[in-house]
């Protein structure tokens, strides 16, 4: 059996890429390294849904977030702007008034990124990018220029005074990154996690995209459960893939959903790369900063514990020195596995101290007192179980110097590698984690364009 392409990985992006290639008549082998998550986090662009004919079931919790206050109160953030404004009004009349305008302006910027995310990235000197940005009008453009490099804390301080509102929103700026709300570039991350959501909803949706992708018709696709060991390269061109048990599969194209470091420095022979590029790949920052706790039972909505900007900043302070946050940022939701709690910050190498997280989670989140713990996965466990390098779910930290046309490195941003036939399609690629399937979709488009 010969294949046109081999896709490594079972993340959403890898599956999207595989299906897209198969749809265009390619014989594709998917090497599944682990069983994929059925439900996943992140906006699924409608183009991906339409092109693959996915019938997705989206979680649209309402309220989209219940921000827990240290005094036991809560701030409910609804999909309806007016209803949210009413919630906010209990804490600040001024903030309640500003809410609709804030939501409108953030949504306008998010729409620009929605477009940018469904194509291979271009740098800001590119005319199309410039015209797109000018299309925002004066207000939007000024917002964009100011907002991109800003700390999310400054953005929110410009708008609001209510600590718990600012905390709950700022969490999207620091999600899965070793930075605090006062770090520059976190406002961009806040916006990134807003892309694809309706105005006023600042949590990416969850969907059953993983499950749905597996149910799609499989013509042109073969699946194999195995670990990739080595990408066969000759004369600078891909020849195929060697699996862990030694079997060799021949194909002129390998599309890797694994992170760039593993793909280029371990699976491929780095001797094919410019050593400067190899150094750059080795320098891609991918630090996991969170643990995942699972408890039995359903969660009461999407609970957020991030009571203020200073609270989040102090949580971050500890991880800078390699410690687990004593008072962490927590977010809990219902999943097929029960209540899933995102616990941030947990530095790498804190394996033996993970047990302590349970008491902290029970202390800060209601409803966990009697819930039975199912599992705790720290960064090292997530690396092992999910294939996330150092536990970083986005494979490459989504920071401004590793975003857009710089993602994960400018030389790799077009999904292509210097090794002919080797492509990258994982969340380390533009637009990155938090958007489900777009990197795989863009990568497949690039391959089809190249090969046609």
């Amino acid at each position, binding site marked *: 059996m010969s294949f046109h392409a081999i896709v490594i990985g079972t993340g959403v992006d890898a599956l999207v890429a595989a299906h897209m290639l198969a749809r265009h008549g390619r014989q594709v082998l998917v090497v599944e390294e682990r069983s994929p998550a059925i439900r996943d986090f992140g906006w699924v662009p409608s183009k991906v849904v339409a092109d693959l004919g996915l019938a997705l079931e989206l979680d649209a919790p309402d309220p989209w977030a219940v921000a827990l206050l240290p005094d036991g109160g809560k701030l409910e953030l609804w999909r309806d702007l007016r209803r949210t404004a009413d919630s906010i009004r209990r804490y600040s009349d001024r903030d309640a008034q500003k809410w609709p305008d804030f939501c409108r302006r953030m949504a306008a910027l998010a729409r620009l990124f929605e477009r940018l995310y469904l194509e291979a990235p271009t740098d800001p*000197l590119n005319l199309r990018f410039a015209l797109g940005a000018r299309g925002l009008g004066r207000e939007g*453009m000024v917002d964009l220029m100011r907002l991109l*490099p*800003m700390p999310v804390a400054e953005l929110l301080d410009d708008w609001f005074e209510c600590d718990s509102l600012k905390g709950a929103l700022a969490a999207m700026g620091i999600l899965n990154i070793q930075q605090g709300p006062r770090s*520059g*570039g976190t406002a961009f991350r806040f916006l990134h996690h807003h892309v694809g959501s309706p105005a006023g909803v600042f949590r990416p949706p969850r969907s059953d995209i993983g499950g749905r992708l597996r149910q799609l018709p499989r013509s042109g696709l073969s699946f194999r459960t195995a670990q990739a060991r080595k990408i066969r390269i000759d004369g600078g061109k891909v020849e195929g893939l060697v699996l862990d048990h030694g079997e060799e599969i021949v194909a002129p194209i390998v599309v890797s959903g694994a992170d760039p470091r593993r793909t280029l420095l371990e699976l491929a022979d780095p001797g094919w790369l410019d050593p400067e590029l190899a150094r750059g790949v080795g*320098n891609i920052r991918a630090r996991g900063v969170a643990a995942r706790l699972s408890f039995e039972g359903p969660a009461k909505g999407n609970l957020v514990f991030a009571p203020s900007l200073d609270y989040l900043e102090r949580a971050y302070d500890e991880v800078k020195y390699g410690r687990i946050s004593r008072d962490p940022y927590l977010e809990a939701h219902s999943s097929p596995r029960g209540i899933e709690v995102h616990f941030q910050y947990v530095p790498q190498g804190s394996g033996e101290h993970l047990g302590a997280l349970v008491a902290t989670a029970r202390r800060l989140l209601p409803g966990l007192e009697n819930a039975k713990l199912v599992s705790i996965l720290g960064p090292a466990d997530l690396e092992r179980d999910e294939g996330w390098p150092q536990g970083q779910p986005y494979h490459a930290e989504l*920071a401004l*110097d590793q975003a857009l046309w710089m993602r994960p490195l400018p030389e790799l941003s077009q999904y292509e590698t210097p090794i002919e036939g080797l492509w990258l399609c994982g969340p380390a690629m533009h637009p990155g984690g938090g958007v489900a399937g777009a990197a795989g979709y863009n990568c497949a488009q690039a391959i089809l364009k190249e090969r046609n």
Partner: protein
Amino acid sequence: MKSYDVAIVGGGHNGLVCAAYLARAGKRVVVLERRERVGGAAMSEEVFPGFRFSVFSYVVSLLRPEIIRELELPRHGLHILPLESTLTPLVEGGKKGDYLAQWNDHDQNRRELARHSPRDAEAYDEFGLELHQMARLIKPILAMAPPDPVSLHPRELLDLASLARMFRKIEKKKFNALWRLLTMSSAEYLDAWFESEALKATKSASGIIGTMLGPRSPGTAYVLLHHYMGELDGVFRAWGFAKGGNGSVSAAIAASARSSGAEIRTSAPVQSILVQDGRAKGAVLESGEEIYADIVVSGADPRRTFLGLVGEKHLPGDFAEAIRRFRFRGSSAKVNLALGELPDFTCLPGRGPHLRGAISISPSVAYLERAYDDAKYGEISRRPYMDIVIPSMLDPAMAPPGKHVMSIFVQYAPYRVNGGWTDARREALGDAVVDTLAAHAPNIKSAILHRQVVTPADIERVVGLSEGNIFQGELSLQQMFFLRPAPAWARYRTPIDGLWQCGSGTHPGGGVMGASGRNAAASILGKRA
């Protein structure tokens, strides 16, 4: 009542530079300085009998070479003495510890770096080359009035297109390297280059100067580059000390301006800028005297200029809003010491050449980050970052024979310190600084004859810089270029006809650079800056 072509509010170095250029172009110019001397934060003062200090700003490097040339500053008394080394003592406590020294001589420097890490010694040259390339890239931008990227006005579009052309000519690789510098933290940027903690810390320290950011905060890599843009005698990243203190920089610019016919009035505090029918007409002094001029240029920072001297009622709402949210957050203090003897560093004892350069208290990135953590929550850093020079080593006239003056730049001392700045807190800051220094040079306490502590509140009160920010507004990406100080108003013009700005609160801002003053003058004269 006298009338002028141009009245300049504030005799800081940028105001003086602007005045000098306008006077050379034949304008009748008056500079109105509140204090009894010119120079703003670039001034020297005999604080204690026989001991002269650059009280605030204390080194020269960023001052644009074209200004030195065009205003003939050496002829007007400017003499810059190079600072040749940086010493970073590494271990705290009375024990003899190690140090990292950076020397001007390439071989000597390399040998010292290799002692800490041979790889770093190698990387250092490449690092230097990259920053040199970046500084070259930025150089033309420093002398440019930033266009308004949003405007549809043909002139703005034209300027924007030429800016885009300039950038498009830049190799992709260099453009991307610049982007990384703009967006990364200095610590992360340096992590990709070096392994030695002391080197990373000392380098990253230049990324936090004047900011309310830590070395791990994105945006600080640019500040690092900003401090690399200093150019002395054609060499980037060369630092110097002005003979006679930084006051002689201002004095030389003032002398140059006067020689071209500018009038400089000291002890002439401006109370407000006269605005009639949306047009600036002149300035009113606190004495009630009114000075009329066709053009008014403010060298004061944007907050002071617009919310203070002009008044919000004359401003469009969105502009006032932009100025209100322009961030200052001063974070730096100065401690000036009169010394009976030289400090003796445990790590490198004696009166070596290291005392002729800078001494940087920055033993590790974590040390700097911890200093920032204190300040983030409104406290003075318990163990601050300090940049120390001993000007009397280079210019003995600064102190009586055998005695010395020491200038210590201190961070972080947040303007919004919990409980506000009081005399007690000022002294607590002085004590923290001396204690920290004593851990490296134990004789310092007995060597101190006099001590002056300058807090951000003092800087604001004395020099008039809002919140004591030494850059007239933070040098963060969201407050730079197009956006400094407000979108659409980055070309030194203001929404009020006839009112212009020339301070560091405009592009490119920061340090004793003078570029803002020069660019403003060019814009006023209708030349392309």
